[in-house]
């Protein structure tokens, strides 16, 4: 829906997000970037249509089916995040048409603010706020999880680029402030 609009989208962080170098000097340990979400759809299956809907999700992004909860498959068109046993997020692609007997789709393009955390101390920084095991073997690239950050439920995806945080839009500023304050101790660059 969003892409053909004439109106301009406005980030939840507008007025709060400033690029630059903050905190400790030296090589920045953490880089934070807001990634504008273009399209984000949820596609959900019923217990007896998981395979069919999984295949649709795979086709939408042009890749394999995300095998289980917490797994992510990135295809040429976008990414599918298996965020719940019966639910996928389709990131970067429009949702396919799904009949109610098969499942349901839902536009969440405006519901989340995406922050990417990279840098040598990104994991350390995130673990100041997120109670998840983010060690390499436990949370490798293309893992996703529903987790919590400063009292708020968020979705975390480890992409090839870094850690992608999907913050509920209304909490984005508050969480951004806490994340920013936490990151300054590592030397922070906001891009």
């Amino acid at each position, binding site marked *: *829906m*969003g892409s*053909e*609009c*004439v*109106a*301009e*989208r*406005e*980030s*939840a962080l*507008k*007025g709060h997000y400033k690029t630059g170098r903050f*905190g*400790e000097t030296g090589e920045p340990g953490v880089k934070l970037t807001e990634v504008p979400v273009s399209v984000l759809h*949820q596609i*959900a299956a*019923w217990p007896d249509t998981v395979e069919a809907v999984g295949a649709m999700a795979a086709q939408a992004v042009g890749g394999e089916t995300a095998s289980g909860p917490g797994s992510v498959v990135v295809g040429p068109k976008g990414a599918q995040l298996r965020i719940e046993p*019966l*639910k996928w997020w389709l990131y970067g692609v429009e949702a396919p048409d799904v009949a*109610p*007997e098969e499942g*349901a789709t*839902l*536009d*969440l*393009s*405006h*519901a*989340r603010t995406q922050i990417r955390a990279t840098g040598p101390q990104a994991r350390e920084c995130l*673990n*100041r*706020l*997120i*109670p*998840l*095991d983010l*060690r390499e073997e*436990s949370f490798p690239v293309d893992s996703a999880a529903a987790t919590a950050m*400063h*009292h*708020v439920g968020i979705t975390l995806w480890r992409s090839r680029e870094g850690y992608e945080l999907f913050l*509920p*839009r*209304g*909490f*984005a*500023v*508050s*969480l951004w*402030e*806490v994340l920013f*304050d*936490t990151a*300054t*101790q590592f030397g922070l660059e906001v891009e």
Partner: protein
Amino acid sequence: MAARRLRQGGRIDRGKPLGFTWNGRAMTGYQGDTLASALLANNERVVGRSFKYHRPRGVTSAGVEECGALVTVGAGARRDPNVRATSQELYEGLAAGGQNAWPSVRFDAGGINNLFSRFLVAGFYYKTFMGMPPFEWGRGTGWWMRYEKLIRKAAGMGTASREPDPDHYEHAHEYCDVLVVGSGPAGLAAARTAAEAGLDVILAEQDGEPGGSYLAWGDDDERVTAIQAVQSLGVRIMTRTTAFGLYDYSVAGLHERVTDHLSAPSPHLPRHRLWTLRARHTIVAAGALERHLAFGDNDRPGVMNASAAGVYLNRYGILPGANIVVATNNDSAYATAASLARAGAAVTLLDARTGVPGAVTGVATEHGVGIRFGCAPMQARGAKGVRALRTAIARDGAWQPGPTELCDLVLVSAGWSPVVNLLSHRGVKPVWDAGNDCFLPADTTEPVSVAGSAAGVWGHEHCVVSGQAAGARAARALGKCSPRFTPPPAGGWQEPLRPLYEIRMPGRKLKSFVDIQHDVTTEDVRLAHREGFVSVEHLKRYTTLGMATDQGKMGNIIGLALMAEARGVDIPDVGTTTFRPPYTPVSLGALRGRSVGTHFKPLRRTPMHEWNLQHGAVMTEAGLWRRPWYFPRRGESLSQAYVREATTVRSAVGLCDVTSLGKIAVQGPDAAEFLNRVYSNAFAKLPVGKARYGIMLRDDGIVMDDGTTWRLSEADFLMTTTTAHAAQTMAWLEELLQTRWPDLKVHVTSVSEQWGGVAVAGPRSRDVLQECVADPSKVDNDALPFMGVVETTLKEDVLCRIARISFSGERAYEVYFPADYATGVMDRLWESAESMGGCLYGLEALGTLRVEKGHVTHAELDGRMTIDDAGLGKMASTKKAYIGKVLKRRPELTREDRPRLVGILPKNRDEKFNAGAVICAENAISGHGEGWVTAVTHSPELGHWIGIGYVNGGYEHWEGGGLVAADPVRKGNTAIEVVSPQMVDPDGERMRG
């Protein structure tokens, strides 16, 4: 002359002197010092005053068990009381001072308490001041209440700053395979063995430097090699980090002191960090603590643990005394005595045992230590510093007075207590080992191993093997291959120790302290026994033995031993109190982390948050949200503003941010059936393109929440909830789907964040919408009648959903649009509304409009009311089943005289009354009365104050009048009339028109 810094030796850096102040006096120490070692080096003997008797106290240890040198560090907002000087690393500019003393710890007026100390025994204040004769004669607490404040003031510790804490703190989370607590010989060996097996290991060390006992006793090359070995294996070493508690599922609480050792810490660093560490296995290698001994005036400055003197000598390059008496009952003090003698002190060693082999005494005698067997300390002399020690000699199984030794330092070693605290946190009771005279960790099925002297293993080499065995055991438990080591048994002295807890002699009154920090003496323990407090738990609470910052680290076992003696039983039969977290104090700041100030809880912003502020909104809290309260024009008060806003809505049009309402997508072929079961009114046949107001009940028949639900397509609904109960409703729907009706093909997903929402209300609302949507015919009265829903686009091609629903009672719409477009949508709507004489309105006007209409909110649906109480009972279906239907028919919930929703008018229309007032019959103003007022407002439509609330039996029952709104603490009584809650446009013609 007593303590002095040596020219060489120790781990301090003499090239880096550090200036600090003690009670305002400038002093110098070195990099590597603790505050305690620096004070000793400056020969500062009296550094504290005791809790109750204000007795002078000096440094008693070199570690976290310190019970004498409790000081206040820092000033102003950073004043930190009760800091153990032995754990405080010295830094340039540190400012510390004594506490619980006036004018100073050296000359303390409160010391007068000591003169009366024979009266100030355990329980003195309670016994004296509660039921004080002749005033209260054994009953009442009036005197206690009157004097408690003064009594509390006389006893005590340091005082905290009352200013806001300027530092910040944070939480952190980490995972590993094995957590090793303690980096001494056992801990390093355990970490290395576990890491060699391929495990991810974290080594937590409370000290600023890893090494544990290596730092004072071991071979430093060995220490460095061991540390390098674990580091090269990828072991993560956390220093200044105390594992203060062990919890369920192998969760450890760690307290890291990040900047307490720095004179100018980076402002970006938190002061402390609270770690939640999830390890698969925990190895406790936390060492053992040396015990002291109860003898006369054993709390005098200059009485110290024997091992501590070794630490001050070997780690800090300080000779803590010139004439030293060492009193021991075990082998461990011999090495200390020898090294002190070698460093130049005159040392006499009293061994309570009758004799030990030359293998034990050898090194000591070589260095000229005079050894006397069958001797023990009886009483220390010298108030502000030990000048002499009266000794006791064992004769015929009793102690008799011996000669007096002139000395400036008395060192005591009465055995060692393994640090079993962490295991105790897991509910594993330690077991008494009579041979080693200590509690040892018991076997456990918990994923916890204990190694080194924490397991009662004394010798250095044995500790290393013990650590290796624990590391290997952890590795095997986690499915790794690891060589087998035979863990050495507890013990390791060449000669058994002689259990010794107290030196006392018939006919001699000695003030012998068991718990030095809390001023608990041996007599207090015996008094507790005489008065029947014989259980350890009672003993602790009656005497305060084992409380405060050291939590009985030094004195508990003596207390148990004395109680065992008094009861004529063995120590294990007395039992031991359960250690609870934290092992050492944890700052409150660390517990709070970043949840302080504006981040005490996260602030939730609507997509129009900034827009509202830019348009003059005064905000108010609504749960985590901020919502516009009112939009004052120049010079307007709140009441002027809301009356204007409400008037404008009724006469023209107003816009109100309603984004905070909960929004839930209910999707699936069974969605209609699901809603029909959840709501008390019918939803199964709601047509596509229609909205319906629904009320859901709890299982017990009480109203849970209300809101409108819109049918967007056959299988797609949008449910709205109240702001306050959005999350609760979402969780409730999920619970129902997952536990009661898993067969229903329905998904619920919160879309609260996806959509911004604005109410457009007032007679001109349709005109505003027709100006703003791309196709005005989509919102005309035929296309969008009352309770209609339409999906269309605004002029900028922004898709929107519009439902014609009304909270204000006027013709009104709720317009939802994707959140990122909020600013543009609001600009367009406002441009149009403003040109029609419209306004922006906030929660206050919203309240006015809904009170006039008698529409309910959670002020009325407060978790006690039924649907009938709220006047909405006719909506509930009689044909279908729904949640709450059965229990809402309970007799108590269907009584005719239950409170019913009413409108409230002041009898004299010029009068005002308050929300929260109790509604009473005018001749019976008492108790709970007949009802209460939930909300009031000044009604612009009616021109006077009105309210809604509940009255027993409803307004019909009170048609004859006779009610008052009683408000005794604010306003007094106001005569009222109760009427139908629909006070404006009762037939609803406006919203349908």
